[in-house]
């Protein structure tokens, strides 16, 4: 029953689907072309890293991702589109990067990858690619609901010395400009992204930290519960939109 209520809550967002725009639709034709062409999209360099890691054993006597999960094209299809997802052992939702690291520690007896490391971004991009073209499908587990609500509150809560909430820019002023840049609607359609500003790959949490620094707030740490809650809310807000990973953004 709670699951049904949760799905109904998502309906109004779906009904307004035509008013929601991925950040990529605001980009110049040149940047859009860079994202669309797999032979020109620099994010594909990280995807290659991820593909290699997928089938590489962390040590001779340990299993590779592929040894359990097989062909990622089949087993990982749609996975990135529904993360963060509730994890019973943790008793809370975990983001995709944490899921990769939990898997490494538990099943591969390997040290977790550092946040924003090339390896973690590579595997995240490789998994994201397996969901490219699929609709974002937020975790339907009702146990995730309170965390999603916490994410919504964070999104609407003013923070930092500039005292801005995410919603003030990305809901109230989306489509307008902040200096020379268009303010997008903040739908996490392409993560991890190759951001021209970074001249490299980065996660949604890196982007969120940029925004927090921008409003002069102390950014939440990578993997902090608040980050996962925000991710969870943003994914629900973008439910039904198409996964573009690896995205390119200005």
């Amino acid at each position, binding site marked *: 029953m709670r699951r049904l209520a949760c799905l109904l809550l998502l309906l109004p967002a779906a009904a307004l689907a035509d008013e929601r725009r991925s950040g990529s639709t605001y980009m*110049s*034709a040149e*940047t859009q072309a860079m994202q669309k062409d797999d032979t020109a999209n620099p994010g594909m360099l990280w995807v290659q890293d991820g593909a290699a890691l997928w089938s590489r054993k962390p040590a001779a006597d340990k299993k590779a991702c592929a040894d359990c999960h097989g062909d990622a094209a089949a087993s990982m299809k749609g996975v990135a589109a529904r993360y963060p997802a509730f994890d019973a052992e943790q008793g809370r939702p975990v983001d995709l990067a944490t899921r990769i690291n939990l898997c490494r520690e538990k099943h591969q007896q390997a040290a977790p990858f550092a946040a924003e490391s090339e390896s973690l971004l590579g595997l995240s991009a490789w998994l994201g690619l397996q969901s490219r073209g699929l609709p974002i499908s937020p975790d339907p587990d009702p146990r995730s609901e309170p965390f999603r609500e916490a994410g919504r509150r964070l999104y609407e809560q003013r923070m930092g010395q500039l005292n801005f909430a995410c919603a003030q820019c990305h809901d109230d002023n989306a489509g307008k400009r902040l*200096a020379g840049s268009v303010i997008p609607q903040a739908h996490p359609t392409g993560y991890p992204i190759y951001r021209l500003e970074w*001249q490299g790959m980065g996660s949604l949490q890196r982007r969120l*930290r940029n925004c927090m620094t*921008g409003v002069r707030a102390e950014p939440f740490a990578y993997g902090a519960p608040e980050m996962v809650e925000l991710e969870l809310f943003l994914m629900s807000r973008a439910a039904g939109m198409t996964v573009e990973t690896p995205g390119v953004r*200005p």
Partner: protein
Amino acid sequence: MTNATRRDALGLGAGLAAFLSFRPARATTAAMSEAIRDFAGTVKRQEGGITLDLPPLVENGNVVPLTVSVDSPMTAESFVKRIALFAEKNPQPHIGTYHLNPRSGRASVSSRIRLADSQAITAIAEMSDGSFRQTSAEVIVTLAACVEG
């Protein structure tokens, strides 16, 4: 004439004057001239016959996609030998040099460059007969919001 339109006209006039007085100064930047002289010597350069295709308004100066092409046959008798790019307001004006030959088939190269600021980009091609062609394009670089601090 209402106050508003007169203000507009004055503003436009001032802007135009600033623009006009600014242009020649930029075109003769010493470092830029030196970089161009290193590539093309003092041979007179023909305007045109070369196309620089890049967005007039770029979203981030870190990665500016561009294509430079020269309207020329690519045969043993007549071809484009080298194409160089220059940006006058970059700390180092010479962006890159591309070497072509008759086996290129077409004189067209694409790359992604960095621009420190809004400025004019100049492309110069050296032809197999020793002549040079030149073109320029003005680019406005906007900055990303909420950069990492």
